[in-house]
């Protein structure tokens, strides 16, 4: 009777063979097409885009059927078991031509909320201003990690041959973790705290997380949601009462713009190959537009921004008038980005292009 399991016994047999000099070195010659790879790169840096050339740049339209994590470009022995978890196997479902370069950009432009924000420069602010900043941070803490949860939901389903996309999405998850973290820190760091959550935001978050497939989820989140938030970050920098918030919003803005860039190029790649899917994308954007219009007008969303824009609660109406143009800017940039992706949304837009605040207030 064997002392060990068949697996261990097999391993011991191999060791015996090796000890007798019967070495299996077939692996050394396993991948002649991938051997002798030459690269070019800038001095002092080696980017993903530098190595993914020649043999290693051959990305299959349909991800490998072996379904394992074997690296693209390697020799995969027959019988390698499938992990059985990849459902996104078509390149067009996830690919963007800028995925690798955005990954390179993301890893080299990481920052941290522990030491990169000049927290020592926080200063006591008037109560209404501190509350406005804290409410804005409450909303952003609530909304930001959907852009972590959404890629996390799909990441393990993406075929390993599309590792550029997987790597980029991994950086996005880290970016969003940092955003949640930094806004929560700001809310709690200056004598204030978290204020009111947003039921309106939850409608949008649900639409993103419940989207039936990756392409529609990405269009809704990367282009629509993150595009709108990108403008909010720009606005946050504009309204920032101290250097601390300025820095937070500038750094977050950079991250968000990378995510938007992936989303635009992905939707373009997808629609060029699946024009028949355009109605589904439009339908998902219909849902998103309704949700964002509703949440934009929630008191806990517009109120703090109007207070900051007016310079205080006493001037909240002036602040509203000053901020009315933000919405128009968000919609314009959203339509512009969709146009680059090949989607003419303007005739289908379900929300106003502008909010005529002066007319409505009259």
């Amino acid at each position: 009777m064997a002392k060990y399991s068949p697996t261990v016994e097999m391993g011991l047999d191999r060791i015996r063979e090796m000890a007798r000099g019967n070495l299996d070195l077939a692996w050394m010659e396993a991948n002649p097409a991938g051997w002798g790879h030459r690269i070019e790169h800038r001095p002092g840096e080696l980017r993903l885009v530098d190595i993914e050339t020649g043999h290693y740049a051959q990305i299959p339209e349909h991800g490998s059927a072996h379904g394992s994590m074997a690296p693209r470009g390697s020799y995969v022995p027959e019988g390698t078991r499938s992990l059985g978890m990849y459902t996104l196997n078509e390149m067009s479902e996830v690919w963007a031509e800028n995925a690798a370069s955005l990954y390179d950009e993301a890893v080299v432009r990481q920052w941290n909320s522990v030491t990169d924000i000049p927290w020592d420069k926080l200063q006591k602010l008037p109560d209404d201003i501190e509350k406005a900043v804290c409410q804005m941070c409450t909303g952003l803490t609530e909304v930001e990690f959907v852009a972590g949860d959404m890629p996390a939901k799909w990441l393990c389903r993406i075929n390993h041959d599309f590792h550029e996309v997987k790597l980029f999405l991994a950086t996005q998850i880290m970016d969003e973790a940092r955003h949640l973290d930094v806004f929560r820190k700001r809310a709690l760091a200056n004598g204030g705290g978290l204020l009111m959550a947003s039921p309106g935001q939850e409608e949008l978050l649900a639409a993103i997380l419940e989207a039936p497939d990756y392409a529609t989820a990405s269009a809704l989140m990367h282009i629509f949601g993150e595009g709108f938030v990108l403008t909010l970050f720009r606005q946050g920098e504009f309204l920032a009462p101290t250097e601390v918030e300025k820095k937070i919003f500038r750094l977050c803005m950079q991250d968000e713009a990378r995510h938007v860039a992936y989303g635009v190029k992905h939707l373009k790649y997808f629609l060029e190959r699946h024009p028949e899917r355009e109605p589904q994308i439009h339908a998902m954007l219909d849902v998103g537009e309704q949700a964002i219009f509703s949440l934009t007008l929630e008191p806990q969303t517009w109120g703090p921004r109007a207070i900051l824009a007016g310079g205080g609660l006493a001037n909240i109406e002036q602040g509203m008038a000053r901020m009315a143009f933000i919405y128009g800017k968000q919609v314009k940039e959203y339509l512009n980005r969709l146009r680059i992706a090949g989607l003419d949304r303007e005739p289908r837009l379900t929300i106003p292009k502008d909010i005529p605040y002066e007319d409505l207030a009259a």
Partner: protein
Amino acid sequence: MASALQFASPEWFEALAARMRADAEQYRRLGAIDCTMVVKIDRPERSDLYEIVFESFGVKSIRRLGRLEDAAPGHFVLEAPLEVWREMIENIRAHGAADLQHTLNYLTFPDDPMRVTGPNQLETDAFYRYNESLQRFFDGAATVPTRF
């Protein structure tokens, strides 16, 4: 004391590029920057255009353009009247860096007094993607004696 450099001129932007090289460690911390920025200075009689190409952690090239169409295809444009550029630069020189009301984002966000545009939205978005590095680049003007 170093003689003042004319804004705008290739020499003035080269002085910013030199400060970027001298501040290499900080720029490495901010991360690589790969984009083309066109600075447009509007005067009553004409507009001046300068193309600054950023690559990795520094400036690859600076050139004066005859017209915007000569700019590299992937670029964004920062444009403002000369007096706005002057106020921004003088503010940076006075404070060592832009104060809250003179950052690039602050000046461009309402599209007034400065605007950021591009051949398409993604090119314009590069201004947002590299904003912290671009701000630091212009903050380099703090130590560049400038005449207008």
